[in-house]
């Protein structure tokens, strides 16, 4: 099947000479080198604020603001970390953030993928309208929706509860749209073959579509998790007690309106980011793994 589709793709492009025009090996090596240099220079620019953050977090207070400004600390001071840990009850914040971001991620990736399956693989009346409604949910800034949402959670008696934090975010138009785009590229012959064998939609969804969409599901999972791990406004407004607070709100204490305690803010930001960076580094293999259609036939 894939050979047929591949053939037709190549056919439409057409006009390729049979003579190979790949360029000389030296030229290609040169282009590759240039690409890596560009990517590395870009990487340095991207990394720089984080290097500054890490180095500032181990500076004693007197060295944070100096003239001329310096990047490297003259002496090491780990007291910002100790102070952050003791002043804001970091363990509890980690736990709350993990429960909140973890539950939102599991629920919304599941519900979004179910809906995306219907949009990408099934036909039903009202499909176009419902899909536009999904897109519409992305078009109003959350800052202004948070006021009516606050009153809704109040009516439900969900303020300052885990369900009030989690349930309203348990589905996401962004996720439905993302997964729909990925699901719709998988060959429909797979569904047909499974249906001929007597498979129902739930089976096709779980065993064909979800199995072949590892990269997209992993990408959405990490987006949802890190977005909510860093979500400041939502948990701040929906919770009112210290025991329900999540990391971003707890760490905001160090970046007050008039004075920023930079070394402590940086220590807190580093501690908050670290689990996400480790998670991303190891999760990557799921979204770079190519799909192997041939294995399915």
């Amino acid at each position, binding site marked *: 099947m*894939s050979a047929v589709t*591949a*053939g037709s793709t*190549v056919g*439409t*492009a057409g006009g*390729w000479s049979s003579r190979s*025009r790949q360029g000389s090996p030296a030229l290609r090596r040169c282009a590759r080198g240039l690409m890596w240099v560009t990517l590395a220079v*870009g*990487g340095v620019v*991207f990394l*720089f*604020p984080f290097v*500054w953050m890490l180095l500032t977090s181990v500076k004693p207070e007197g060295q944070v*603001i100096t003239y001329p*400004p310096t990047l490297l600390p003259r002496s090491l001071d780990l007291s910002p970390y100790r102070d952050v840990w003791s002043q804001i009850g970091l363990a509890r914040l980690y736990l709350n953030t993990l429960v909140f971001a973890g539950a939102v991620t599991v629920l919304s990736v599941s*519900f979004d993928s*179910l809906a995306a399956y*219907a949009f990408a*693989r*099934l*036909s039903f009346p009202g*499909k*176009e309208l419902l*899909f536009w409604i*999904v*897109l*519409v*949910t992305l*078009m*109003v*800034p959350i*800052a*202004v929706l948070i*006021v009516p949402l606050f009153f*809704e959670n109040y009516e439900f008696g969900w303020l300052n509860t885990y369900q009030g934090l989690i*349930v*309203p975010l*348990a*589905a996401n*138009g*962004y996720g439905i*749209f*993302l997964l729909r*785009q990925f699901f*719709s590229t998988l060959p*429909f012959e797979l569904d047909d073959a499974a249906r001929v064998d007597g498979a129902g939609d739930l089976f096709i969804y779980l065993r064909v579509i979800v199995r072949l969409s590892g*990269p997209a599901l992993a990408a959405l999972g990490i987006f949802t998790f*890190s977005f909510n791990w860093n979500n400041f406004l939502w948990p701040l407004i929906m919770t009112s007690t210290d025991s329900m607070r999540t990391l*971003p709100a707890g760490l905001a204490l160090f*970046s007050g309106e008039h004075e*920023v305690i930079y070394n402590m*803010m940086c220590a807190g*930001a580093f501690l908050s980011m670290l689990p996400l*960076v480790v998670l991303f580094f190891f999760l990557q293999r799921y979204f*770079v793994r*190519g*799909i*192997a*259609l041939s294995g399915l036939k």
Partner: protein
Amino acid sequence: MAQTQALAIGTSRDGARRRGGSIRTRRAVTAYAFLAPAMSILFVFVIWPIIDVFWQSLHNTTFLPPASAYSGLTNFRGLFDDPQFWTDLRTTAIYTVVTVPLTMAAALAAALGLRRNNLASRMLRTVYFLPALSSLAVMGLIWGYLLTPNIGVLDYWLHGLGISQPDWLGTTTWALPSVIAVGVWVSLGYDMVIFVAGRQGIPEEYYEAARIDGATGWQQFRHVTLPLLAPTTMFVLVTSVIGAFQAFDQIYVMTTGGPLYSTETLVIYMYRYAFENFEIGYGCAVAVVLFVIVLAFTAVEVRMFRRSQTRVY
């Protein structure tokens, strides 16, 4: 070819099939069952609040003092009469038009360059994705600090290199470009990861076939990668434009819209009225106008992709 039709919104090859009524009903019931969990949450927790925002935009709702009465189109008239609104609309449009293409092109290049699973690619991908893993409020503060004259280390080094600039975020000429650069820095990682995932969804067999026919690297990119990546590209374009029109967090932290409103986007304008002056009704009117603009852009983008597909295939 079948899958190419399904790339455009709302088209499905199933629709073309002739089926008996009862089977069609059963399939519709199945589809609604798949949709039910997500759509019911979206209706209760997003659509309903959106309706409330529309309703408020027709009222002169304020918090201090708490009041709300029907005011017709007064909010909208006030909005269109405010020159600041038009300036901010222009700023938002410039921000979007510069940030989105720049980010998308760089993200696609990074995704294709770093799609292997060796250590160098893994580390560079992580680095490019770091902004997406961090708190925008904190990173906005850090960028603001790095660019502060005399005390920011980046400003100091740029001075040393002979790039003298009195104040990156404090002058009306340079504040918007600086904010745009940080905007690209923020969203490049997201787009890169989506492009990597999209590229991995294209079966290797297509590239093998192209290579056998003697296609060069550029030809493979132009005739295999780009067309088969179209659904991914459409997603990135639509969500990036929406995101850029709603840009707020890092800009607000870096400049609060200044100096002299030169970096004030529409959402900052909205925020100023709704949460600093507590004129909720007026803030909602801004959100409604923003909604209409974004909806129009999305409709054009969707149409563009539909047309490009008929051309490519």
